[in-house]
């Protein structure tokens, strides 16, 4: 079992390397982290936080957009591509379970994502600490951001596999992935904010809104990092809500979502008839 999962992972890694996905993912993360850390290096004395914590707060807002995007870009082809190339029937006649195939792909794609995240955050941290050695105090926040980013990425990789299995065509899977990214990462928050404004402190704001934030993996990720670091509540539009939701709830959402999305992916893949 383990050997078969690793075999798939190694093969997927070869493919990703040749398709330049590793390069694209790493370059995206590094470039955006560089821009943010340069912006974050501006004087921040008034906030009373170390510079790295400030950079981490900016990186959190960046990662909420970028990590799901990179994860979906890597994963949308996983099943639909095999179906369209005609490689899936042969693969499924091999003594390998469908979940083992997905697990192998997940392993490879997550590894690439980890490399990209480490490269991006590493560059940002190196620059910040070089500019101000006192910033090492923020390393804890950076570490928290790193592992939650990996979990967020795994969640969206799983969602990408599920969409890929449902669409069965690469073009359809790409469309679904972009639509889902826009919906969960961009429009979801806008919709919630609009509803909160319209509701003006009523039932929606007190009961539905926190649950709605926790139900979205991207929002849970942002909440957890902002609440935990308590650095810059003002850095985010949903920051105000962060204070009212206990840390353990957003942590739970972050931990559960990868399992849910991978279970969905496995279910959707099982329904694919070659």
């Amino acid at each position, binding site marked *: 079992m383990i*050997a*078969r999962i*690793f*075999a*798939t992972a*190694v*093969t997927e890694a*070869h*493919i990703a390397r*040749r*398709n330049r996905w590793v390069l694209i993912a790493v370059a995206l993360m590094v470039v955006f982290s560089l821009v943010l850390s340069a912006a974050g290096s501006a004087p921040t004395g008034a906030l009373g936080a170390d510079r790295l914590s400030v950079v981490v707060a900016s990186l959190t807002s960046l990662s909420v957009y970028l990590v799901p995007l990179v994860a979906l870009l890597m994963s949308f082809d996983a099943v639909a591509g095999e179906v369209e*190339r*005609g*490689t899936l*029937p*042969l693969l*499924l*006649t*091999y*003594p*390998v379970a469908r979940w083992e195939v997905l697990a192998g792909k997940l392993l490879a794609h997550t590894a690439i994502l980890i490399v990209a995240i480490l490269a991006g955050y590493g560059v940002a941290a190196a620059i910040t600490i070089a500019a101000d050695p006192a910033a090492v105090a923020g390393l804890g926040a950076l570490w928290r951001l790193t592992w939650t980013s990996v979990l967020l990425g795994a969640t969206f990789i799983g969602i990408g596999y599920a969409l890929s299995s449902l669409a069965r065509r690469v073009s359809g899977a790409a469309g679904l992935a972009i639509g889902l990214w826009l919906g969960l990462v961009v429009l979801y928050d806008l919709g919630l904010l609009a509803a909160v404004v319209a509701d003006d402190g009523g039932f929606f704001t007190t009961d539905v809104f926190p649950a709605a934030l926790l139900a979205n993996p991207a929002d849970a990720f942002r909440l957890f990092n902002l609440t935990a670091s308590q650095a810059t509540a003002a850095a985010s539009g949903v920051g105000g809500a962060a204070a009212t939701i206990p840390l353990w709830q957003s942590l739970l959402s972050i931990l559960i979502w990868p399992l849910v999305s991978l279970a969905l992916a496995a279910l959707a893949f099982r329904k694919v*008839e*070659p």
Partner: protein
Amino acid sequence: MTSTLTISHLTKAFGGVKALSDVSLAVEPGERVALLGHNGAGKSTLMKVILGLIAPDGGEISVCGAAPGKARSQVAYLPENAAFHSALTGLEQITYYMRLRGEAVSGAMELLDRVGLGHAAKRRICTYSKGMRQRVGLAQALIGHPRLLVLDEPTSGLDPVSRRDFYELLDGLAADGASILLSSHALTEVEARTDRLLILSGGRMVAEGSLPELRREAALPVSMQITALNGYDTDIMAALPDAIRLNGGLHLNCTQEDKLATLARISAMQEKVTDLEVIPPSLEDIYSHFSRRDGQ
């Protein structure tokens, strides 16, 4: 010895359209069986059911003593137009398949050499020709020691020399006890290289047996081409009332049973005949006879 593959009364429909109806067959260890049929006759569907890729609607199947898809380590498959990820090299692709089958990957290069791809092993599959991709497909079907090989048009895209090499590989596998079920359009090569033919038409098994058996069952007429000595053709036509004039000669069809008697009558007139050609029904004729019998 028990059969490697047994199918009885298999039925499969796609949205009300019957792709396979009441198909029964058995393949013994060491037997090479060819599956013939026109496009859409159900060959690929039958293979996919055997492989467990699609579930049948009715009937029973036993593959290496298990349900389809449950004995995958003993079954090898070569899909029609075998496709692979173009970014991988031939060696990487074969290595991957060997790992999935739990075979030692040290044999990957040897396997590629066996199908004549050793020189291109480290090139990406996107640079391969169709015939080379087909050989990657063959190579993966040879991994391990499968007891049943299901090959969907294995020789398409191969040149005549490669085809001969391929059938020699199959002979070796069959001699070791592997069962082979292959589909093909190339009737003449299948005739010489398989033990038994199955003809599918419109989802039904319309004929089954060795070529001589099918020939007998079809009872197609033998045709004879007689070239008469100048001026004697009317005499010959009088003696053989069934003969017709065709392309300047005389053409005659007769049944298998009447063949010798007819030949005797012709040889009795040998001073009037310059040449005689006897044409037995070709494999194509037999094949069309069976596959068109149901009004296809």
